[in-house]
């Protein structure tokens, strides 16, 4: 009985509270209306109204098109890429040159330290090419990953107000990285030609496989981390730290044969090292650029015997990773506008 009474009073109090709030809101609304009543000029409709035929289907305004939708919006992608490039070199005297000066300096330092002072290559022929091949593709990877991680945050003005397939920003970053890497590949090709490179089908196959792994792997990471970075800015620092290590965790400053010797005693360390898709990519690229400048006997020991098997397994793994990354991105994407 008392409990029922209590419930009743509670309900009553709630009701008065509600109506009070309502009246308060009403007063606010009226005051607002008074204030704004003539703030907007009134323009009447003129002429007869026409009927508009829209020959489109009723669809969701935010389709989950993912990466596929990005490649349908080619014009938009082109605009975003060119804009990103323009922005990068705004107010910079050397402009695009900067993306060559930095790798060039790094190459000189690495070559001096590892090739001249430490001699870590153990007599690898054409060591400079061995090193440079690795550096070009590691550079592409780190630029895609770290730039992609920041991409959603950097474009928050657009993400918050306009409807775009948001995967477009990491993809655009990858295109920018490719734009920077292109001329480096050209330099690499010239160096190869000078050092007596000769055509081999196996080399091209290795290059294609390596490129496929590289694109899938860097795109997956960039999708995952760009989404995470919206929620916690820590991720861009994590990425920066890891990319610094990456230069040392691929076989470019030292040769594969040294790792093979390590594998004889510490199998797990060897397996862990080659679980990194980037290590596989670097070797496949060296198979395309560096190996054909040598005689087969000279590079026989410098590639793992199961290079191809590993490559195809890695490609499968990276395709799976890309699928998972896209799903993960799509799940978090819905919350971007409220968290930016």
């Amino acid at each position: 009985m008392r409990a029922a009474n209590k419930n009743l009073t509670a309900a009553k109090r709630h009701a008065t509270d509600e109506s009070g709030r309502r009246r308060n809101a009403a007063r606010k609304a009226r005051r607002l209306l008074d204030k704004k009543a003539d703030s907007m000029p009134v323009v009447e409709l003129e002429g007869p109204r026409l009927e508009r035929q829209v020959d489109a289907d009723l669809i969701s305004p935010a389709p989950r098109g993912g990466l596929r939708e990005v490649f349908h919006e080619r014009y938009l992608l082109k605009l975003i890429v060119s804009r990103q490039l323009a922005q990068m070199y705004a107010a910079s005297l050397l402009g695009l040159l900067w993306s060559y000066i930095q790798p060039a300096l790094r190459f000189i330092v690495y070559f001096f330290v590892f090739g001249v002072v430490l001699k870590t290559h153990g007599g690898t022929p054409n060591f400079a090419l061995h090193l440079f091949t690795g550096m070009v593709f590691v550079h592409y990877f780190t630029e895609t990953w770290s730039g992609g991680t920041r991409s959603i945050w950097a474009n928050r003005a657009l993400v918050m107000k306009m409807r775009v397939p948001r995967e477009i920003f990491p993809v655009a970053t990858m295109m920018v990285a490719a734009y920077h890497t292109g001329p480096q590949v050209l330099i690499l090709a010239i160096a190869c030609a000078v050092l007596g490179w000769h055509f081999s089908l196996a080399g091209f196959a290795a290059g294609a496989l390596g490129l496929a792994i590289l694109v899938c792997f860097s795109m997956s990471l960039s999708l995952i981390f760009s989404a995470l970075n919206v929620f916690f800015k820590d991720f861009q620092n994590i990425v920066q730290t890891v990319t610094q290590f990456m230069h040392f965790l691929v076989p470019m400053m030292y040769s594969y044969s040294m790792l093979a010797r390590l594998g004889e005693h510490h199998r797990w360390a060897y397996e862990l090292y080659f679980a990194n898709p980037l290590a596989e990519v670097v070797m496949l690229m060296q198979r395309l650029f560096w190996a054909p400048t040598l005689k087969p006997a000279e590079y026989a020991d410098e590639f793992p015997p199961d290079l191809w098997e590993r490559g195809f397994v890695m490609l499968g793994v990276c395709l799976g990773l890309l699928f998972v990354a896209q799903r993960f991105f799509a799940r978090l994407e819905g919350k971007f506008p409220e968290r930016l």
Partner: protein
Amino acid sequence: MPAESIVVDHVSKDFTMQYHRTLKQMAVATARRLPLKERFRAVNDVSFTVEQGESIGLMGLNGSGKSTLLKLINGVMRADSGTILTRGRIAGLIATGAGFHPQLSGRDNLYLNGAILGMSEAEIHRKFDEIVAFADIGKFLDTPVSHYSSGMYARLGFSIAIHVDADIFLADEVLAVGDRPFKKKCMAKMQEIRRQGTTIFYVSHASASVRAMCDRVLVLESGHLNFDGGVDEGIHYLEYDDDEETDEALADGELGADI
């Protein structure tokens, strides 16, 4: 026979408000047993259908979920439950201002915005002069938009959106910062696209302009769609034209605190 242009079916949208962003803050809050986050329902079980060519006035106080609803309709946000379907190209301005990139010039932003709104390269080239003329930003076209005055910013944004030839046009208090002649020009332009059969969503507190612009009014109150009907009734509903009750409320005292 006009077709449906927008179908909103039992749509809700929650926001998570996170109070603490660093681990340290979270640890402190947990130790003090403060809530780490809170959910807040911005749009609550809203359903309505709009036919092609209808012009809707969306009214309600600040914070009643108008902008969120428009963001859901234009696809910037996704509903947590319920479905939204739209037909055709959507353009418009949400929460006073376009999505411009501050470091880019007005020209670059024009191209970018046009492309995002679904215009092709040829279409943008064709309408470029018209858009610039309407926005009336003159020599500032090649200045970064971060240097624009808020009026210029709004003018360019509105001008792009209105020239998209959209099937659905959303105008969310866009003109709040414009000056009177520009507002008038915009209203005339909106009437023009209304006449051509574009579905319009117009958010405004100005009852006279809603009366002139809209065929139907929706009123949102703390996320609920509490009114859906004729324009005069809607404005009447929002004004709560009952004076006696207000005097009573004033006498009540306890309500006075919230002014």
